[in-house]
Structures are given as structure tokens and as C-alpha cells.
């Protein structure tokens, strides 16, 4: 039944007028230059976020934007409700503790002497992304000193 060598020019082809009618039926409508620009504008606007995301991934570390506080659940910001604000205050001391605890898992003990206590404190208190923090303090031998700095943070609600 199926003929793989079927040629488009065989007798089953439409007659010229029928083909012309089909062509006009399916013809693409004329688009003016202004309409093309409008369509291109729509496409550009729709693509803006994804392109910006790709640019941020390609940017050097120093040019990365400040980290964004992730919502705690249900897509809501943790700061919009009184309970959320109270919860956020309780979490403030937990964050450096968590960072220090994570650091214990990755830090190695180098041959060189440990940096001064002050450098670790500065790294913990600085407003830097987690990955930058890890890079700055990696190789720090005195993990206990880092943990000590963390527990000396404000450990209670206002």
C-alpha cells in the first residue's frame, strides 16, 4: 500500500487551479515591519529573565549579587508576618552556627600554621555568600576557634 518512492509530481497531484486555491488558503498573511518589531519586542521581553540568569552564572564571583533570603515555606517571605519576624530573630544566631558546623565537615588540616583568631571572626561576621566564606576560611586548621566565635554571637531574641 505504501510506496516509499512516491513522487510528488504524479497524477494524484492537485490541478493547478486547485493547488493555487490551496496555496492562497494556507498563505501566510502579510506582516508589516511595525508588526514584526512588536513581535520581536514580545520575544525579547519574554527572554529577558532567562538571559539575565545566564549572565549571572557567567559573571565572576566578585560581581555576584547579594544572596537572597529564601522563603521559609509556601512561597511566603519570612518577614511579612509577626510570627515570621519573631522566627527570623531566633534564627539569627543559628546561621553562623550552621555555617561553622558545615565548615567542620570540609575543612582540612594544612601543614601551615593556623591563621590568627581575628581573621576567622572577621570572616564569620562579614556579609558574604556561603561559598565565598568557605573559600576564605578553607584550610583554617583551628575549627574549634571558628565554632567559639559562632557561639559568642548574640544568642537570644531581642
Amino acid at each position, binding site marked *: 500500500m505504501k510506496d516509499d518512492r512516491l513522487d510528488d509530481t504524479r497524477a494524484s497531484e*492537485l490541478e493547478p487551479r486547485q493547488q493555487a*486555491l490551496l496555496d492562497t488558503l*494556507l*498563505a*501566510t*498573511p502579510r506582516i508589516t515591519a511595525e508588526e514584526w518589531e512588536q513581535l520581536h519586542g514580545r520575544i525579547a521581553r*519574554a527572554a529577558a529573565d532567562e538571559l539575565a540568569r545566564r549572565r*549571572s552564572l557567567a559573571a565572576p564571583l566578585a560581581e555576584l549579587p547579594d544572596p537572597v533570603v529564601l522563603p521559609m515555606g509556601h512561597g511566603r517571605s519570612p518577614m511579612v508576618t509577626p510570627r515570621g519576624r519573631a522566627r527570623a530573630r531566633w534564627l539569627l544566631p543559628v546561621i553562623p552556627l550552621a555555617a561553622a558546623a558545615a565548615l567542620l565537615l570540609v575543612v582540612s588540616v594544612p601543614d601551615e600554621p593556623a591563621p590568627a583568631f581575628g581573621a576567622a571572626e572577621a570572616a564569620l561576621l562579614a556579609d558574604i555568600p556561603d561559598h565565598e566564606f568557605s573559600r576564605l576560611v578553607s584550610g583554617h586548621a583551628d575549627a574549634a576557634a571558628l565554632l567559639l566565635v559562632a557561639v559568642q554571637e548574640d544568642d537570644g531574641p531581642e
Partner: protein
Amino acid sequence: MTSLPQVADEPDDAHLVARVRAGDAGAFDVLARRYSQLAFGLAYRVTGGRADAEDVVQEAFMAALHNIDSFDTARPFAPWFSRIVVNRALNLRKQQVRHPTVRMTDDLPGTRPSAAAEVEVAELRERLRVALSHLPERRRTIVQLAGFDGLTSAEIGDMLGIPAGTVRYELHEARAALRAALAPCREVEA
């Protein structure tokens, strides 16, 4: 399959894709302008509506952007992108609640015939439109794509994921059905 001709000093598709991957909005704009005409033509052929075709074009460029990392720059961009366009157009057509019909367009190229000829043409077009709408979906899609921008059976088959031989067979059957639908008019034409 053709797209807008590249200007001599414009980068080729592979270079544009590499820059789009890095988020270059200018490169994406060049790529979009280069292929929007092709995309719109394909989308319109399948959906039959101008607004739907524009939506499909936008969706197709977004899909291409999100999947740009998977594109093999050693291969031509047009076939890969055309597949995306046709798939999006077919998805839109399937989602439409109303009975899938081929819409008539008022924006026809060329000069308008006389009043009497207009009536005859309108009647023939309506019969052709109805006959097209009664074709099985894949066969109808093949008819709609055939003859667009010099697409070959192999290219159409590539877009639809079927062998070129199947495309030719479906086209043969479709044309037979359309000829039969228009047959009563042939006596009038003679």
C-alpha cells in the same frame, strides 16, 4: 528550508548560540530576527490563525532558549528550531476546544479578482477548507507544511518524527481526498 539571509558581517548561528548560552541579549535578538519569519510561517500553516501563530513563535523561542545548551552547534539551527515550532503549534492545536478547522485569511497576497470571480473563489475555498478540516490530523499537518518555503518530504518528516516515505504517502492520500472534494467544481470550471 530558508531563513532570512545572513549579512556578511553578522556572526553565524553557531557563534550566536554560544553567545546566547552566556546570556547575550543582543545575540539572542539577532537569532530571533533571523528565524522569526520562518517560525511564523510554519506556525501559521499549522494553527491557521495569526494570533495563535504569534503565540507559538514566542513560545518556540522560549523553548529554544531554555534548551539551548542541548543544541549541537555542529548541526544547522533551522531544522532543530523548526521542530520546536511545529511541535508547539501542534500542541496548541490539540489544546483548542473548538473543532480544528483551517481558518480563512483575509490578508491574501496578490490582487483581488472581480466580484463574480470572488464569489466562485470564496465557494471553492470554503469547500477546500472543509475538506482539509476533515483530514486526519497528521495528514492535514503534512498538507499544510508541504510547499511551505521549499520544505522537502525529508524535512517535513524530520519535524514530525516520521519517515520521508510516510510523508509522501500521506501527501498523496491527502491530495486525492482534496481533489475528490473539489471534483464537482471542475465541470463548472470547464
